[in-house]
């Protein structure tokens, strides 16, 4: 109970901080609109309206992913700049649990990205907004947010050990768009890319969202997305103590 309460309160306060940053807020408002616009111009050559919905959903998840991948690293860096990282480490809670609400908060911003992208596509370009299975669609979005938060957590823990690694957050942003089929189906990519895509939860989250919106069977993708998200969280928990011990031995926690 105490743990759930901690996650809830921390998520709320993290969300408050994200919303109060004018630059983050500005980017979060504008980015989804750029993604939706780009997707529309790329795919408008297609004749089927489903192609546009396909692209619109892809653009929406792109926004969600960008929010997590770029912000998870910089969030850790910010904790260093603010001098709060050491306080988080000396707290009696497990450090992975301390970080989770932070990455969950960032992933939650992705929900706004998704909604804004779909609405922009609908009202600016007339892309129909029909969701075949609304319940499954909602569940798929939640599962994707949780899986993204899990992956963000794994990144964040690594960024505690490698100070400069927050830059890698930006590096991961674009390849995942491509590899996980946000814009083009995975089937069009070389076969050697497929195993990489399979171990990335965004692939399955994207599939689940599309399947539920376009009238397919999202459940297997949804479960795979959640399963991989759980693997990321477990992985992060397992490496946390090792990462922290290493940082304590090197004396790198207070460095910015």
């Amino acid at each position, binding site marked *: 109970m105490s743990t759930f309460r901690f996650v809830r309160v921390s998520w709320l306060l993290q969300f*408050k901080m994200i919303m109060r940053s004018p630059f983050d807020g500005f980017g979060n408002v504008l980015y989804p609109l750029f993604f939706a616009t780009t997707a529309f111009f790329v795919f408008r050559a297609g004749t089927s309206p489903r192609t546009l919905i396909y692209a619109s959903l892809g653009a929406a998840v792109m926004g969600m992913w960008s929010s997590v991948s770029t912000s998870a690293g910089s969030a850790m860096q910010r904790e260093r700049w603010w001098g709060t990282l050491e306080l988080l480490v000396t*707290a009696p809670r497990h450090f992975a649990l301390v970080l989770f609400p932070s990455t969950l908060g960032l992933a939650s911003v992705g929900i706004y990205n998704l909604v804004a992208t779909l609405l922009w596509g609908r009202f600016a370009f007339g892309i129909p907004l029909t969701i075949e299975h609304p319940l499954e669609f909602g569940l798929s979005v939640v599962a994707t947010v949780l899986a993204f938060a899990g992956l963000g957590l794994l990144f964040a823990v690594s960024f505690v050990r490698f100070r400069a690694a927050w830059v890698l957050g930006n590096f991961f942003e674009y390849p995942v768009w491509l590899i996980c089929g946000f814009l083009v189906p995975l089937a069009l990519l070389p076969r050697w890319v497929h195993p990489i895509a399979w171990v990335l939860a965004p692939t399955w989250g994207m599939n689940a969202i599309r399947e539920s919106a376009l009238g397919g069977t999202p459940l297997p993708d949804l479960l795979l997305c959640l399963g991989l998200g759980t693997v990321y969280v477990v992985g992060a928990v397992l490496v946390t103590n090792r990462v922290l011990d290493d940082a304590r031995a090197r*004396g790198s926690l207070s460095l910015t």
Partner: protein
Amino acid sequence: MAAIEAADLRRTYKTHTGTVRRRSKEIEAVRGISFSVEPGELFGLLGPNGAGKTTTIKMLITLLIPTGGSARVLGLDVVRDADEVRRRIGYVFGGERGVYERLSGYDNLRYFAELYGVPAREQKRRIEELLELVGLKDREHERAEGYSRGMKQRLHVARGLLHDPDVLFLDEPTIGLDPVGARDVRSTIASLTAAGKTVLLTTHYMFEADALCDRIAVITQGNIVAEGTPEDLKRGVADGTVIEVEVYGVADENVQRVRAIGGVTAVAVEEREQAQVLVVQTGPGAELTQAILGCLNGSDIGRISHREPTLEDAYVALVSEPSETTGRHAVRQASTP
């Protein structure tokens, strides 16, 4: 059982130089220090910047793993029992960092209360009490980014006390504060031992250590060079004399010559506008004015004055001389419980 015990505690860091041909170098920040703090005691680690105070405190609060020796807090080893140590200690450092600026003071405390596992039903009362204690009541719902440095510092103190820790580590908590802000923080610290807390305080302000601490250890270059009550330290220089010589443009070699005079225990150079003041501490019964002036040939000499040594002189003497001097060990042995 001592509340805090350090035995031959050491910490070295690796630093790198060069870009293409990187070379690593080991820096000994703490060189085998030992001390113990009794429950309910306010113990001061006093030393100049870079003396090893913060490194020592970071080893004790589990943020750094010692490279040698051992340390225990409330009987728990800081490396093996790090999780349990964290539950029972509070940590407050000086400066403006360590605060979530976009959150209000109240939300900062709420977050850390959750982080430290303060039960939900106690949180509100505890936060209200602490806001009252540190004088932030009525400003708690403002964002911390609008707080003065002193207010942020008091917020730090409140945060460190949220989970009612048995032992509190305060790392230069008044650094950079104006006199009024520093006085407020000091009075809060004084009230902690009255409430039965064990406090380890680091500072480089002699008067602060004198006013607050039951015992003091003076640390310089990673070594403890003296330990005892403030009165013990004062006694260490009470029999000597301080000669202050105003001089215009004193050369380093002249200062070294003064330092080498028999009976001189410490020499410091203070900058005062265009002039420097050579502050020379001498041992009991020594009349060294002429000898000092003889070493300053070629320099323009201004006013010369004699005075009784202060506690600050004791501190300067301790941190500016090699630690092997026997007098310092005597202070330590005389006062160690």
